[in-house]
């Protein structure tokens, strides 16, 4: 139902509101007094409400960081849970200000949807999960298998590509939401379940007997996941992009929630520019110069957010891998603040 409403909203917005979906997102957010953030319907570690109804996760932290930068209050975020097939329509129509919902950056999405990807907050790749008792040890052994997946995702397309490229047969069973997909897999409708590797670890926790399932070693695609904004508002695009970069730069420069006060007294010019004790970098974004101080104080740097939500101190226990800083063998690299 949601989808129809969103689509109608888009239609109506496109028809009668002359240019409601263009610039001025920052002003609108300030006037509303809160950020509206498109989030997952529930993916542990990335975007899901906890037992008290507070949204937690790596994606959620990006939204909280934006709110902290704008309002000095990381709680001023309204999270709108979106299924994968509704998410872009919701952003296009202006129902959400920013979409941080483990969405893969692809060329067609960046060019034809009227949206812009602002960066990558998680480098992911697609994998498969199967039951241990099937005795499968590689995705290449899945010839003739039934595979459950979520519709309207890059996953659905990669799956077709993988089986086509390897000349294997399969049966796809596509569901609208991740919950329906994992339930059908759990009920035995499919031999394999496929989504981004991070999602496999998160979804496995929902199964009746998580230990009866293994994740196959193959990663069959590149899935750079990142925040998305509407095309045509460069100020907002910059703000979201640099919020993410600020978190990565903070980690690189060793600025953490714990040592923030000492760091404010640092003589290192890079840290001074980051924390706004030198230069007017915040004002260039339409914020005050201590914007990164607010982000780090309330949300933490990228590494802290990673550890807390998906890393070793979380139930998911995902290694940094590709998501380590560039200086530590990973891909996370932010342009300098200067």
């Amino acid at each position, binding site marked *: 139902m949601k*989808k*129809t409403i*969103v*689509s*109608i909203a*888009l*239609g109506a*917005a*496109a*028809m*009668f*509101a*002359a*240019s409601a*979906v*263009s610039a001025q997102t920052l002003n609108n957010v300030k006037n509303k007094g809160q950020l509206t953030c498109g989030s997952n319907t529930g993916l542990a570690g990335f975007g899901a409400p906890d037992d008290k109804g507070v949204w937690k996760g790596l994606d959620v932290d990006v939204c909280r960081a934006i709110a902290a930068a704008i309002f000095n209050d990381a709680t001023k975020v309204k999270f709108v849970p979106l299924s*994968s*097939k509704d998410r*872009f*329509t919701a952003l*296009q129509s202006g129902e959400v200000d920013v979409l941080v919902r483990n969405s893969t950056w692809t060329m*067609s*999405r960046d*060019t*034809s*949807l*009227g949206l812009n990807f602002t960066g990558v907050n998680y480098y992911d790749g697609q994998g498969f999960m199967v039951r241990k008792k*099937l005795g499968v040890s590689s995705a290449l*052994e*899945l*010839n*003739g*298998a*039934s595979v459950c997946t979520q*519709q*309207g*995702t890059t996953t*659905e*397309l990669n*799956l*077709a*590509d993988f089986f*086509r490229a390897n000349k294997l047969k*399969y*049966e*796809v*069973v*596509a*569901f*609208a939401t991740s919950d*329906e997909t994992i339930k*059908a897999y759990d*009920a*035995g*409708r499919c*031999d394999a379940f496929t989504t981004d590797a991070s999602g496999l670890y998160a979804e496995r926790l929902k199964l009746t007997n998580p230990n009866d399932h293994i994740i196959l070693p193959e990663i069959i695609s590149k899935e750079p996941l990142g925040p998305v904004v*509407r*095309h*045509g508002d460069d100020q907002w695009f910059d703000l979201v992009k640099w919020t993410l970069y600020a978190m990565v730069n903070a980690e690189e420069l060793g600025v953490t929630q714990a040592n923030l006060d000492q760091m404010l007294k640092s003589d290192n010019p890079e840290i001074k520019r980051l924390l706004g004790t030198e230069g007017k970098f915040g004002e260039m974004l339409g914020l005050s110069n201590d914007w990164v101080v607010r982000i780090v104080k309330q949300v933490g740097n990228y590494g802290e957010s990673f550890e807390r939500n998906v890393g070793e101190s979380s139930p998911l226990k995902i290694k940094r891998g590709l998501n380590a800083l560039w200086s530590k063998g990973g891909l996370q690299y932010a342009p300098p603040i200067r």
Partner: protein
Amino acid sequence: MTTEAADKGAPRVSPLYDPKVRGIAYQVVLALIILFVVYEATTNAIENLRAAKIASGFGFWSVEAGFDINQKLIPFSSTGGSTYGDAFLVGLLNTLLVAFIGIILATILGFVIGIARLSNNWIIAKLSMVYVEVIRNTPLLLQLLFWYNAVLKPLPDPRNSLSLFGAIFLNNRGVVMPSPVPGPNFDWTWIASLVAIAIWIGLSYFARKQQAATGKRFPANLIGFGLFIILPLIAYWAAGSPLSFEYPKQSRFNLTGGMQIYPEFVALLVGLTIYTAGFIAENVRAGILAVSKGQSEAAHALGLSNGQTLRLIVVPQAMRVIIPPLTSQYLNLTKNSSLAVAIGYPDLVQVFTGTVLNQTGQAVEVIAITMLVYLTISLTTSFFMNIYNSRMALVER
């Protein structure tokens, strides 16, 4: 002069006050306003989509889709270069399939339950009542999820399929049956069936004429049915039994080969049939109760049996009351089939407004096409039901 004017009837008035002219003028103005609004909305939408750099137009129709669909009536695969347009057809045919079979089954079940509710047998009447009340008063979505889980949960996995004669297999991936592979001369069997049907129709025409003329009854249906069975069998045998079967084989994960009926389809069909039958049963009951008691008393007085009374006297009159609400139940069933989204059956809404919309990002076009399709299906259904209704209606002389 004045008398002549009076002879011509109504006095001449200015066209401004002529009710006829005024009426037409109002209609024209209204039509122009509607056209203007539609035109403005369309051009504005196109302009805004362009300004927001969102792709628009129907160019996506012939773009390769790149995904797969498991349940399809026409070939569709990412390997074969199927397009978004093909995906639309797959979804549409799946919707029509489930709606068509659903309507037939729901009508049969609905009539049985509706008549059973009026039965003199207390248990049957009460059971039907419970059925109707339970089914009509719970949400359809809940029932669909129930049936999907009821179909999926208790069945074994494909490695431990329940099998019937080693040919038909039942597991949580559905029912797998041997698929018939017609040989070169199999067409004769089809031709024989068509001939049998033609003879059957001819016989019943003759039987009706004879009964009207002489009152003698001729067992046209019995003979017609017999021919329908025997003629194709003879043709099949004479052509040298040109039919072989492809049997499903156990492979590592699934049974391969043969025909497969998927659990999503079964769950949706069962759910829609049972739900709609509850409403049709009430329509049927209302229709039968609307036929006055004197009609059946008169039929009994003429010596007709209970069955004959129902079939020849009560039901034909009840149909006049039943058909209009029956039409709207058919439309409901067709539209409700879009709830397939919840259980992963690839109907039009699931495939087209789900996957295609998301992969192309063209919400306005996709939603507009989908709405148009449902409108067309519904209008076509009511058109044929209206024809049927006017044939059944009371002919007044």
